[in-house]
């Protein structure tokens, strides 16, 4: 399951999607909006995605994860739009036969998402706002 959504991420929905009797380990990662960044107080966060490409890149992550580990089920969801403090911005869950591969697969998925999926966030402060300094994907251009 891969979704970019503007509504709240439902952890129940993700876990329901991972139901599978052949897997004994589920690792769930949740990223949520933090109240500070670089010493400044964050009040909320806005996310923008290049939806078609983000979906494709997340599908590539799913394919790669399934190649590398015995992942039977994987769910990846990312929010877009305006989020309040504490709201979940990203959720990744994987189901594997055993915990070690589940932890590894989940870590790989979130790390790769942050390195390759075209999504941007803007922090809102008490006294202004700023786009978060991001990562240039490997295939990006640096002049």
């Amino acid at each position, binding site marked *: 399951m891969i979704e970019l959504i503007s509504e709240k991420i439902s952890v129940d929905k993700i876990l329901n999607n991972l139901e599978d009797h052949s897997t004994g380990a589920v690792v769930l990662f949740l990223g949520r909006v933090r109240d500070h960044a670089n010493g400044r107080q964050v009040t909320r966060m806005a996310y923008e995605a290049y939806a078609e490409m983000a979906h494709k890149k997340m599908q590539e992550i799913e394919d790669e994860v399934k190649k590398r580990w015995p992942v039977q089920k994987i769910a990846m969801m990312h929010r877009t739009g305006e989020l309040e403090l504490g709201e979940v911005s990203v959720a990744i869950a994987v189901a594997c036969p055993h915990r070690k591969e589940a932890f590894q697969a989940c870590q790989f998925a979130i790390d790769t998402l942050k390195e390759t999926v075209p999504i941007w966030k803007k922090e809102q402060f008490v006294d202004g706002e700023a786009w978060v300094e991001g990562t240039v994907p490997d*295939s990006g251009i640096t002049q």
Partner: protein
Amino acid sequence: MKVTLRLFGQLRELAECDEAEIEIKEGTKIGDLVWLVGERFPNMRQHLKVVSFSIDNDYASKETVLNEGNEVSLLPPISGG
């Protein structure tokens, strides 16, 4: 010939639009397009130093030669998660 530029994040805000058409010569590569974009949107120039491009929903190298009607996305450094 023309290509359509799609803009995201900070670049979209600076351009005050999410799409623009750019006139290019035949044989123009993505790497050359950076300069044309900088001429069209001078306030974007410093941000174009670190930018990625995509065509057909995939990252494209600066050696990619553009074709008539290509939709080229201009991607600032990503910060999802």
